[in-house]
C-alpha cells in the first residue's frame, strides 16, 4: 500500500491477525468485498456441498455394487470416419467449457476497465459457448438413451447405478450451465445498455464467479465420472 492511500480507507492488518481483526470489528467481515460478491461466494459454497453430496453418493453406490461398473470410456466413445475415439465428445465439451471460462475472465477484466462494448461481446461469446456445451450434452444424452439403451434403472453394460448417477449428476450440472447462460445474457445486455454505469462493474465479476464455478464442477465430474 502506498503512503498516498485514500484517507477514508481504514488501515488494514494483513495475515492471521488481519483475519481476527476483520471478523472481530463491528462492521462487515469481508473488507472491501462488494456484498454481492460475498453472497455469491456463500451461495457457491452451498452449491459445492450439493455437488459433493451427489459425487459422494456416486462413490458410495459405485463402491457397494457387486456388478462390474460399465466401461465409461467405451460408452462415451464416438466413431469418426471409421475411427473409434474414446471420450471424444467429453473432451470437446471440456475444452469448450475451459474456453468459455477464459473469455469470461477477460470479460471481467474489460468490465473493470469500463469498456462496455468489449465486455458485452466477451460475455456473449461465453454464453454462446455455454449454450453449445448444453447442446452437446443433449446430443450425448440422446445417444445414450436411444442408441446405448441406458436408463436410470438399468443398462446392458453392468451396474444399474451407472444410469441413475449419470443422469442425476450431469443433469444437475447441465441445469447449472443453462441457468448460467441465461444469467450471462441478462447481465451482458444490461452492460451494453449502460445499466451498471453508476457501479464499478463488480456485477461482471460476480457473474464470472458463477460461471467459473460451473467450469470447476465440470473438472470434478470429468475426473470422477468419465475418467475414473
Amino acid at each position, binding site marked *: *500500500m*502506498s503512503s498516498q492511500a*485514500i484517507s477514508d*480507507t481504514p488501515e488494514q492488518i*494483513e*495475515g*492471521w491477525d*488481519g*483475519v481476527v481483526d*476483520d*471478523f472481530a470489528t463491528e462492521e462487515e*467481515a*469481508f*473488507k472491501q*468485498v462488494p456484498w454481492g460478491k460475498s453472497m455469491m*461466494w*456463500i451461495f*457457491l*459454497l452451498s452449491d*459445492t*456441498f450439493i455437488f459433493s453430496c451427489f459425487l*459422494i453418493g456416486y*462413490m*458410495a453406490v459405485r*463402491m*457397494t*455394487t*457387486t*456388478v462390474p461398473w460399465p466401461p465409461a*470410456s467405451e460408452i462415451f466413445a464416438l466413431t469418426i470416419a471409421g475411427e473409434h475415439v*474414446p*471420450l471424444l465428445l467429453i*473432451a470437446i465439451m*471440456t*475444452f469448450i467449457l*475451459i474456453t468459455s*471460462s*477464459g473469455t*469470461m*475472465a*477477460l470479460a471481467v*477484466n474489460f468490465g*473493470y476497465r469500463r469498456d462496455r462494448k468489449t465486455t458485452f461481446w466477451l460475455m456473449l461469446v461465453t454464453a454462446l459457448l455455454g449454450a453449445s456445451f448444453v447442446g452437446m450434452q443433449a446430443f450425448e444424452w440422446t445417444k445414450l438413451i436411444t442408441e446405448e439403451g441406458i436408463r436410470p434403472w438399468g443398462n446392458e453394460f453392468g451396474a*444399474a447405478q451407472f444410469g441413475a448417477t449419470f443422469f442425476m449428476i450431469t443433469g444437475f450440472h447441465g441445469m447449472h450451465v443453462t441457468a448460467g447462460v441465461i444469467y450471462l445474457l441478462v447481465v451482458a445486455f444490461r452492460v451494453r445498455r449502460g445499466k451498471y454505469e453508476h457501479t*464499478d*462493474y*463488480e456485477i461482471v*465479476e460476480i457473474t*464470472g464467479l458463477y460461471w*467459473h*464455478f460451473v*467450469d*470447476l464442477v465440470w*473438472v*470434478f465430474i*470429468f*475426473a470422477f465420472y*468419465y*475418467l*475414473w
Partner: protein
Amino acid sequence: MEHAEGQQHPLGVYFKIWGLLFVLSGLSYMVDFLEVQGYLRWTLIIVFMLLKAGLIISVFMHMMWERLALIYAILLPPLLLVTFIGLMAVEANYIFWTRLIFGASS
C-alpha cells in the same frame, strides 16, 4: 492499492492460466487415451484435477488476491467433506462385503 479499483490484473495472467488449463485438460484426457491403469491412473487423474481446480479458483475466481478472511470463510468449510467422504467410503465398503457374503445381486 488494487482493491480500490476492483480486481484489475494484467491480461497476460489470464492467457497463461488459460493455456495451462488447456494443457492440463489435454493431459488428463491422455490418461484415458493411453489407457493408463491402476494406481498410476487414479493418481494422475486426481493430480490434474486438483491443479485445474486450484488454478480456476485462485486466478480466474481471483481468490489469491482476496483478503485472508474471505479465503478462510470460503475454503475451510469444504474440508469437512473429507470426513464425509471417509465415512461414506467405510460404510460403502461394509455394504459391499455384506452383499458379497450374503449373495445379494446388485
